[in-house]
């Protein structure tokens, strides 16, 4: 249980002012605790000795005021924490998104991006718990006990001594117990998580369970599994709660000890009443912040987990180097060569490309065929510099594209991925992806026409102004593919990369898309990735990536 991740202080601007605020408010709170106790004791003691109520009104009003200010200070710490939480997460998520798009645009699959989004948006709840509840408690736990003990020593040194002797026991206990329970807590948490995902798995698979007549048997097992888990968990809890109780016992016994000794000394006339009451009222305040800190363990763990996740994502090594700034020769005039290019995806044992040699001559269409997983799409990503090779290089006219300006090189390429992504916006805006704002509406229409998309777009409720993408009008697979092709026509780049342009389409759509592809081929260098035969015949050459992993070297066959 670390108090504060130093990376949070180092890498976000919003945390430092929060720490300053919390420290000031924390010290003020501690002082108010002393004022409050002293006032209360003073009122009671004076009334005890016969002071009439009429002369105590001022003290009573001050007491209520002290409570109010203490409440306001706590409120201030919480507000500061919440505001900081939302700023910190905002800083982290903008940095993360920026970095992802720049350095690692290709690395995300759907599941991971859902997870990142959850951490980057919903994570604020966990960070609020951390900054608004845990962090103030850390400040209070380090300030209040010390100030209270100091003041008690001033009022009555013997009680101060009792507290001083019992107080260090508390952090030592906390540390020991923290180490012990942290492990147990995490184990329990993991078990709970896996129970929850087991339930989710079953509910998702319900149709299959029903089809095979297994759904009721599995349902009956569900409650039994929950019962078994409960019994196991209660076993652990019995032990880990025990240690928490020992800690509380130390605290309440200390209060009792202070009260009894003070009582005896009062009876013997060694202590004035006001001092005795002050000491008694302050005694629980010594231990309270420390115990409250322990109770916020989950806030701390959850908040740090969010920060940890964000930092891990931010610190992942970049997939694309951005060193170069040379002007890139145009693939319209110069050949592109992949020279002994190797690439392995992180976490996979075998390279997907192994010393691959491939040449694309200006104006020719090369069809790249091979089993799924053979590395066809990886070649597209390498050409686009969404990834960089682990070894070898890609050149155009003899210049390594890694040394060329990234944006300038990508401007040479039009890419039609297998499932073009629709962005939330109009059809117009989607086709004009990456085009300058000044692009003419007529140019967009022309691109759509060439892509065979004009007819269906005109049939949409608002034509080119129809909103598509998430929440907009849904498009079929073939329609999306044609939007992707229209993007490529509008971009009018010398190199075109087409990834499985006809996969999963019904025969009518295959016809439309194939003829658009043939139009696109004219006058451009084209890399056509396919495992279906329809389009391969229009290629000048067919290159086969053999056997998933190209080893010892890729077979290049002329058709």
């Amino acid at each position, binding site marked *: 249980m670390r108090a504060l991740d130093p990376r949070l202080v180092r890498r976000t601007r919003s945390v430092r002012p929060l720490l300053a605020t919390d420290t000031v408010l924390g010290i003020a709170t501690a002082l108010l605790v002393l004022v409050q106790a002293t006032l*209360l004791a003073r*009122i009671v003691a004076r*009334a*005890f000795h016969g002071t009439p109520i009429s002369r105590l009104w001022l003290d009573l009003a001050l*007491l*209520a005021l002290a*409570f*109010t200010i203490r*409440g306001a200070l706590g*409120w201030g710490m*919480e507000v500061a924490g919440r*505001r900081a939480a*939302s*700023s910190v997460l905002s800083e982290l*998520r903008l940095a993360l998104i920026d970095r992802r*798009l720049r350095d690692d*645009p290709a690395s*995300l699959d759907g*599941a991971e*991006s859902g997870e990142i*989004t959850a951490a*980057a*948006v919903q994570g*604020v709840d966990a960070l609020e718990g951390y900054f608004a509840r845990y962090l103030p408690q850390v400040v209070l736990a380090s300030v209040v006990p010390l100030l209270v003990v100091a003041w008690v020593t001033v009022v009555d040194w013997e009680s101060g001594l009792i507290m001083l002797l019992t107080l260090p026991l508390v952090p030592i206990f906390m540390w020991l117990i923290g180490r012990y329970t942290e492990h147990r807590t995490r184990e329990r948490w993991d078990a709970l998580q896996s129970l929850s995902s087991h*339930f*989710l798995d079953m509910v998702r*698979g319900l*149709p*299959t*369970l*029903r089809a095979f007549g297994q759904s009721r048997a599995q349902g009956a097992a*569900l409650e039994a*599994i929950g019962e078994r*888990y409960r019994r196991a968990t*209660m076993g652990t*809890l019995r032990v880990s709660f025990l240690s928490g*109780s020992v800690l*509380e016992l130390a605290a*309440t*016994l200390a*209060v*009792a000890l202070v009260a*009894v000794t003070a*009582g*005896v000394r*009062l*009876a013997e006339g060694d202590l004035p*009443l006001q001092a005795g009451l002050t000491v*008694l009222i302050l005694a629980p305040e010594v231990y309270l912040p420390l115990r409250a800190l322990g109770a916020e363990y989950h806030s701390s763990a959850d908040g740090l987990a969010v920060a940890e996740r964000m930092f891990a994502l931010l610190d992942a090594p970049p997939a694309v180097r951005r060193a170069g700034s040379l002007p890139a020769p145009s693939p319209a005039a110069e050949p592109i060569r992949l020279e002994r290019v190797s690439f392995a995806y992180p976490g996979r044992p075998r390279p997907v490309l192994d010393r691959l040699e491939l040449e694309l001559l200006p104006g020719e269409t090369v069809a790249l065929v091979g089993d*799924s*997983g053979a590395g066809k799409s990886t070649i597209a990503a390498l050409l*686009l510099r969404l990834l960089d090779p682990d070894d070898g290089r890609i050149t155009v006219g003899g210049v390594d594209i890694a040394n060329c300006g990234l944006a300038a090189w990508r401007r040479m390429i039009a*890419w039609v*991925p297998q499932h073009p*992504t629709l962005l939330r916006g109009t059809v117009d805006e989607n086709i004009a992806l*990456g085009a300058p704002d000044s692009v003419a509406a007529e140019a967009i229409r022309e691109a759509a026409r060439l892509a065979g998309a004009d007819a269906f777009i005109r049939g949409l409720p608002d034509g080119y102004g129809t909103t598509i993408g998430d929440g907009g009008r849904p498009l*079929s697979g073939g329609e999306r593919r044609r939007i992707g092709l229209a993007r490529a026509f509008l971009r009018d780049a010398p190199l075109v990369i087409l990834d499985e342009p006809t996969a999963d389409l*019904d025969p*009518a759509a295959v016809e439309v898309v194939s003829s658009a592809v043939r139009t696109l081929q004219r006058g451009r260098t084209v890399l056509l990735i396919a*495992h279906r035969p329809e389009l391969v015949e229009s290629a000048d050459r067919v290159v086969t990536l053999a056997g998933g992993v190209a080893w010892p070297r890729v077979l290049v066959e002329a058709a």
Partner: protein
Amino acid sequence: MTGTLRRLLGLAGAPRGREALSVSLGALTILLGVGLMATAGYLISRAAERPAIFSLTIAIVGVRFFGVSKPVVRYLDKLSSHDLALRVLARVRARVYDRIEPLAPTQLHGYRDGDLLSRSVADVDALQNLHLRAVGPPLVALLAGAAAVGVTCAFLPAAGVILAVGLLVAGALVPALSGRLARAAALREAPARGLLSAELVELLAAGPELAAFGAEHAALARVRTADSSLVTIARRSAAAIGLGDGLRMLVTGVTVGGVLAVAIDASAAGHLNRVEIAMLALLALATFEAVAPLSAAARERSAVVAAGRRVLELTDRDPVIQDPATPAPGPEWPFTVALEHVWARYPLDSRDVLEDVSLRLEPGDRVALVGPSGAGKTTVVNLMLRFLDPERGRVTLAGRDLVEYRQDDVRKMISVAGQESYLFSATIRQNVALARPGAGDEAVERALRRARIWDWVEGLPEGVDTRVGERGRELSGGQRQRILVARALLADRPVLVLDEPTSHLDPDAARDLMDDVFAASEGQTVLLITHRSEGLDLVDRVVALEAPRVPAPL
């Protein structure tokens, strides 16, 4: 809200006795703390009168008793409340499962994409906090507060009244106010959060294309706009949400001051012993511990109720598909399966997916069903499994309408490997053997062999005991499909339905798989649903489904 809460408590079905025990222990913990401070206050005041030490003995014993027993009772309290939460969780899961089991899959439509489903599972999990954080704390506060007020009244009724009013304000009004402020803030934030999430999801999903087309800056600008509007709203709400704890301190101060004032007054008038002033003041102060968690509990309660309402919406659906009162005896193989002039639509859908479709499968027939996506091919499977009843027309088995049989008797006859089939996060063996619990190793191996994936499985370090990951994530598309086929073959039922079994395979592999499956299913009725050409030469007949009038986008 209270109606929903009551229904949720019913759903949770926690044993009344345990509920009562948990609340009593919680209240007792607080009262022991109150007792410790009150007795200690009395002890010190009494001691100031310098009596003989032995006359303090009872107070001293009391202080020690409270000091020792509070941690013990707190320990029991924590155990019993966690026990209760875990019981509730286990029971709620089982009950929700029982309720939605007959709804799957067609009445869980719209839950198919998984996100909604995982959210409702998270909602079910949230219900474990029902007692622990939402219902428990107010009851504990009520019990402990009433006891403390009662004791105060016994000494000085006016002080008791002040304490009661203070506790009510801090325990009811303040949490209601802060709950309301928090809800308002969440409502303000929700659209901005939703927008930002949508922007992020889109931007991350489109990352490669945005980079390739040089469109990163425009996309980043959109995210920045969404981000800054969320941050502005959140910062504005921050002040409102934390107000509860601050207000509680204010009320505590005023109440303690009030109790002191009447106690001092009563003592001057001789109605109250002066040694009891400190006792009453400290008692009041300590009692406010009972209402401290209530602001958070109010927030928690609205979250739990919102989650619970979504769960109830799901469990309130009555299954449309029911077994008949007097079911016909199960069909005897060989039999004919037929769709007779069937119109079909999904619940909550306004559009027919099938219009006047007829299909007849004689025993041993091999039929391919082809058609563009959205033509309703998968709906034919749902009808045959009786996951859906036709709007018009009928589906028959051995000449009888499916609705005359028990659902289990129908499904026992058909095995399906298809797009909607699910791989569980378990081992390959468990996933395959699901079709026939108790199937031996040999049977599983034979099925995997016939699906042409045994060689690959055998080569894995853990063989058939390899785990496939969530939804079979560790496998490729082709491997998933073959394991699903193996499962359907192992089931060994008279009718075999293959829904797009080769969509992830290249032509040669698809061809091989179809050859093997047809060889392995000799004598069975086979329905092959596909939009590809592989296997079409192996069937007796090809039936085409046309797209319905409105094309259904994917």
